[in-house]
């Protein structure tokens, strides 16, 4: 994107907007100017802006500048600033507002296009994958997983099954580019005997409309997905390993006052529950080499929504999978974790240099754990952290939970190991 300032469609009165948007007691007037927000924000300094400055400028009525600074596309709306602020002041809210005020043609086209693609077909896929293609890919992949052996002969990946307990969504990346990665997920459902279904509408798990700042588009997206769950009468909307996809639906339902008769849940909480109940008897016996792991807490899933309960579940699952002594936490972590720099549409925004600069802090954090692998339940985090390793020559890999779960249970197929290194490429496959 070129960083020359565009003219916003309209200039926002940020101070007035803050009065309406911020909860009582969290007004910008309460700002102590302590700078903790800026010190703790990886976007500080990009485009000459940082959260404290943003607030000061809002206070001073410098609305023109705030309506045009490209910095708002480098802020991932991760809300770490709000978390560390002694007065809980939220900058991300105003960043969202500022994004909305940009003329569509000036917004980073990658985010805009992803949102448009989502609105085009009922599947809501940002990669433009259509309903028939999704269904077909799932069917073909099921057949291929069944072919892996007798124990999977009756494995199913139902679509549009009325009244299933779990409505499961699916990031487009798998059906579009790496369908074999869906296998491990289905095997887990099969193993625990989960009563689940995909849907042919509203199945996709990514959501960029919120990041365009266009509330109407965000709303439309959420409405489609909520309608899909309501249509099948599922009790639990089970969000697969993805952060912002959870946040946008959960928050959207609340914000737009939609009727949703189901409970939102993250897949990782269910992994944790199934492990505790003995239904998913994973262990770390496979990790005889003492391979080290750390986890990335997706801020959309932890700090911004489910809180430390979620972070604790993530760690419980990770420790059970890799062994207590092989798990090394990042610092800071849990609700205080840094965004990786892939969020807020940053990965789609085309501002690579800025995105790497933002992600450097995450890279340093990972490096100082000296972990061999980063586990994360978020596709965005996954892509960004992998990209950081490429860019800064990191020695780690990034892996999904489902891969390790199946590895631990001895049911990870030969072609389901894309994200594993040579150390694990053949483990459990026999000679």
């Amino acid at each position: 994107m070129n960083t020359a300032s565009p003219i916003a469609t309209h200039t926002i009165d940020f101070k007035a907007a803050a009065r309406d948007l911020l909860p009582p007691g969290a007004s910008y007037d309460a700002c102590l100017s302590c700078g903790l927000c800026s010190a703790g924000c990886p976007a500080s300094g990009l485009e000459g802006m940082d959260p404290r400055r943003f607030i000061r400028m809002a206070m001073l009525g410098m609305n023109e500048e705030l309506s045009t600074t490209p910095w708002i596309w480098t802020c991932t709306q991760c809300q770490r600033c709000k978390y560390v602020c002694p007065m809980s002041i939220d900058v991300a809210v105003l960043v969202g507002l500022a994004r909305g005020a940009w003329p569509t043609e000036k917004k980073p086209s990658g985010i805009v296009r992803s949102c448009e693609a989502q609105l085009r077909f009922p599947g809501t896929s940002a990669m433009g994958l259509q309903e028939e293609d999704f269904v077909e890919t799932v069917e073909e992949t099921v057949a291929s997983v069944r072919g892996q052996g007798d124990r999977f002969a009756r494995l199913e990946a139902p679509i549009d099954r009325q009244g299933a307990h779990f409505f499961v969504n699916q990031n487009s990346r798998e059906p579009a580019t790496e369908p074999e990665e869906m296998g491990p997920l289905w095997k887990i459902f099969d193993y625990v005997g989960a009563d689940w279904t995909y849907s042919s509408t509203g199945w996709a798990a990514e959501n960029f409309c919120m990041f365009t700042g266009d509330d109407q588009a965000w709303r439309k997206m959420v409405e489609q997905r909520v309608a899909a769950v309501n249509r099948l009468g599922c009790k639990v909307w089970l969000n697969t390993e993805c952060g912002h996809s959870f946040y946008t639906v959960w928050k959207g339902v609340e914000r737009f006052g939609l009727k949703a008769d189901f409970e939102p849940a993250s897949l990782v909480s269910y992994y944790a529950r199934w492990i505790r109940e003995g239904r998913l008897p994973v262990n770390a016996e496979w990790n005889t080499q003492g391979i080290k792991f750390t986890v990335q807490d997706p801020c959309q899933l932890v700090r911004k929504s489910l809180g430390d309960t979620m972070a604790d579940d993530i760690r419980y699952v990770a420790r059970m999978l890799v062994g207590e002594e092989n798990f090394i936490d990042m610092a800071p972590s849990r609700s205080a974790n840094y965004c990786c720099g892939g969020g807020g549409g940053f990965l789609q925004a085309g501002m690579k240099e800025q995105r790497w600069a933002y992600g450097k802090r995450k890279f340093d954090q990972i490096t100082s754990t000296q972990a061999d692998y980063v586990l994360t339940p978020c596709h965005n985090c996954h892509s960004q952290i992998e990209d950081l390793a490429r860019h800064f020559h990191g020695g780690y890999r990034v892996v999904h939970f489902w891969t390790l779960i199946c590895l631990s249970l001895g049911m990870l197929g030969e072609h389901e190991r894309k994200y594993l290194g040579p150390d694990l490429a053949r483990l459990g496959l026999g000679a």
Partner: protein
Amino acid sequence: MIKEPRRHQAELLVIGSGLAGMAASLFALARGVSVAQVGNSGVIAFTTGYLDLLGHDERGFVDDPWQALIRLREDEPRHPLANVTENDIRAAFTSFTQSLTEMGLGYTAPGAHNVLALTPAGTLKPTLSLPLTMQPAIAAMAAGLDTLIVDFTGLNGFSAREVVANLSQRWPGLRAARIGFPDMDSGAEVYAEVLARALEVPATRQLLAERIGPLLGSAQALGLPAILGVHRPDHVHRELQSLLGVPVFEIPTMPPAVPGVRLRELFETRLPQCGVALEPQHRVKRLELHTQGVTAHLEDAYGEVTIEAAAAVLATGRFTSGGLRADPNAIRETLVNLAVSQPEGRAHWYRPDYFDPRGHAINRSGVMVDEQWRPLDATGKPAHPRLFAAGSLLAHQDWIRQRCGAGVAIATAYKAVDAATQAARSG
């Protein structure tokens, strides 16, 4: 959407996550009491890292705080520290600094005397206990070692030249230098916290040592702003010392500073590991008091949370932290509407001269407690048999002028937890 209601249950609820709240949780854990805790970081964010007990009285700087406490008991019998025995204060302080050290943030044990520690500007202030990363400054200054103070381009809130200028009389062997921090030397603003995190990476320490080494010359010690790591400062400190071969010490910087971030992250990581149900960065919206205990209502990002406890310690701090509020004509306690000791009307809050050495009446306002550390209501009786109060919220102390911030927080938390534990376990 359908949401599961979330409830915590604990013997003790600690309201506030400043120094007093954190100390209260640690003391309760040490007694085997189950704890739930709620609160933002509060003014911990501004701390230098030094833990003061009593640094100043009408005679000026205090050298022996234990002697000064004896006088305080005579002169200010209502002062919170005047109502804790010397033994209890020692036990509280020692237990607190030991816990911090065991959790990975080393602190000196409280001694018989205050030490004079460096401020960000290079002046001196008396304090009782300091982080191990800052301690070597005391010996270096006492021995008058040739010492290099280094600051960084782009780092606001710390100037090596200012430190040297202010200390040169007392410490002639000081010299200042400014360098760029590895990979962050473009001249753009950098933050102490960011430098501190970068130093957790071994390769960055190596690069920094390579930049500083040649500047040392005859220097026998090195002073840096407080940037030696966030979560493993003692480790980073040792590593840098061994790379450079001289004692290294930190000097606190102006906010946003690292020592406060260290404390907050330490507590936020360790307390939950010890079993505390911590709701960090949230506030209790409403507190119900009933015969069997208390019920706190709050809201986090996901929704409503309820906490039931058999007793509660209120450690909500003063005006900045939100424990007290100044309404047009009166000062109020914000959560339970407790009685607040305060001057008659706004006109008496401040003396005409802001720098009047006698201090301002508003700074001594606050919540009053009985001998059991139970806060009083408007009738002068304890507001509730199971509610206790601690920290800077309390009346009759002026921590800014008396330099007794940590002392009041730690000592009163100790007593309040004692009393609350008894109440919680009395059935």
